[in-house]
């Protein structure tokens, strides 16, 4: 009951999320699936506003702590909006062996941000990623959906220009 009141009064849901959460309600007798709902919201919004937690908990019939626990557990679920373009630099061992640190340094100096940060104009977010399975043509950099292999520090400026 408390959950539904909060849902009605306080939770600021963007357009479409009401419907998404209604749709995500487990069928009678079926178990809830918190991660699935979080993925669905993430796909729509690009991140999950922690203020949605009560509504998500209500739709799944679980506690807010359950939802917060899952949300904080998974590295790729963002709780803040990222920049317009997402740069993921692979730090897997094959990339390390092939000097991805130099590529990271080149991107950092080009953008003036560290790993995990977003540029002040919200254009780029720079994230580390553990491995993208592109080890045979490493080092790897993924910008939005596009994966680049055998990246040299000197390639960086050209890549970034295309996303300006």
């Amino acid at each position, binding site marked *: 009951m408390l959950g539904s009141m909060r849902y009605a009064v306080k939770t600021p849901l963007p357009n479409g999320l009401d419907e998404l959460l209604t749709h995500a309600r487990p069928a009678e007798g079926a*178990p*809830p*699936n*918190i*991660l*699935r*709902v*979080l*993925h669905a919201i993430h796909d729509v919004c690009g991140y999950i506003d922690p203020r949605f937690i009560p509504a998500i908990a209500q739709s799944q019939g679980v506690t807010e702590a*359950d939802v917060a*626990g*899952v949300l904080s*557990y*998974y*590295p*790729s*679920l963002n709780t803040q909006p990222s920049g317009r373009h997402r740069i993921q630099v692979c*730090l*897997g*061992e*094959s*990339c*390390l*062996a*092939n000097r991805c640190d130099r590529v990271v340094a080149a991107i950092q100096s080009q953008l003036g941000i560290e790993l995990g940060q977003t540029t002040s104009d919200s254009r780029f977010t720079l994230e580390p*990623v*553990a*491995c*993208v*399975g*592109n*080890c*045979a*043509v*490493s080092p*790897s950099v993924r910008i939005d*959906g596009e*994966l*680049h*292999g*055998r990246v040299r520090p000197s390639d960086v400026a050209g890549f970034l220009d295309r996303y300006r």
Partner: protein
Amino acid sequence: MSGVRLYLSNDTSSCAAGAERLAEAWRQRSDVELVRTSSRGAFYLEPMVERDSPEGRLAWCHVTAEDLPKILAGDGGIPISTIPFLSKQTRHTFVSFGVTEPLSLEAYQAQGGLAGLRNARQGSPSAIIQEIKTSRLRGRGGAAFPVWKKWDVAATAQADRKYVVANADEGDAGTYCDRMIMEGDPFRLIEGMLICAMAIGAGAGYIYCRQEYPAATACLRAAIRAAGKAGWLESDGQPFTIEVVSGAGSYVCGEETALLESLEGKRGVVRARPPHPAQSGLYGRPTIVSNVLTFATIPNILARGGAWHASLGTEGSCGTIALQLGGRVKQPGLIEIPFGLTLREVLDQFGQGMADGARLKAVQVGGPLGSLFTDAQLDIPICFDAFAQADAILGHGGIVVFDDQTDMLELSRHLMAFVADESCGKCVPCRIGSLRAREILDAIQRGQATEADLSLLTELGDTMKATSLCGLGGRAPYPVLSALEHFPVEFRSRLRS
């Protein structure tokens, strides 16, 4: 469509190496008919373009868009059969790679696909399990557990529902063969899962695919639709559903019980065993969780017989192994060979030694939890038993070669920091041990550690090995302690004097 038929790989790594740029440049040309295939796995040659000839396929390597006239004229192509990296391999699971279009069911069947499923349908569930037992197949995800034993437990368990789960959370850095299978030969995985479902009596399957593999996810979903449309997604007269579920960036979700928790939508925290998933897995029902490569190995076993599979490889490690070469070797790529060659032979014959100007310092086998080998240790045969005796793992077959510019202390710190980040937190040795170990390595880097800290690091490692709940904490100390053992000067020279 007319024009010269050119084959170009659609694999993620081929595209990242430039294949996609070629496709964009040539797509509109009327004199070219582009066929997007899986990749041969000879990634050092990508982007690679092939065309048919009376001597089989010809290949052009490291192609740029400007090379097209040369290719159309037939100038300079080399027969695929003359590329030693490929011709020295024994391709069974990866036999179609580079040849077929991943989503062509027709091509899959032309290459022998579905023969295993047909044989399975003619026998009983126990006959399927007997065939797997004869094959002596061991799980390819890292644990190397006899596959038939798991299936037997799940088959004899009484339950209202049973599940088949493919572990496609290929998180070990340096590995990519599961990604290649999902992108390049998805029907083989589906066929393997279906045979397993028939053997244990499961009605539903899941493929838990890591989020870092968007192309694999899309390809699998398309393949499942195509298989359903073609009418072969059924087990024991009932429809067999397969759903692809995305992970969310957690490495430990590759551990089978954490994976099941994650599939249920919860935090991906490891469960204590027993019970094993084959007895009580997804939603408490008997569940077979196996790696993608394991399932992809099944169709050939049912098609050609368990004895055929058992005749390949070594006494304790039957069949072929998919090795994935990466790091500073000259020829990185996918290699499928029978077990038994030594690590040195693999690096020499397939890797062709080090990249130009580089000297070998260490080789890590089996992902971020795998032990490090020095040059003097490379004569170890690639099989489960030899690696177990050496306190090492084959894991998922990833081999990363580091050169002499590698700072072993920094590498050790990186690996331990990774475990500290990825620990699920359920057991103390892993949760606290990895953090303390990382702190000690940090302190060494800052020049603030003493000899006593090194002893503590070793002691901590021994505790983690002995008492962690799963392989993450249990294996985490190995690469660090092997680095300390082989390269002590790099650690000791930075201690506080």
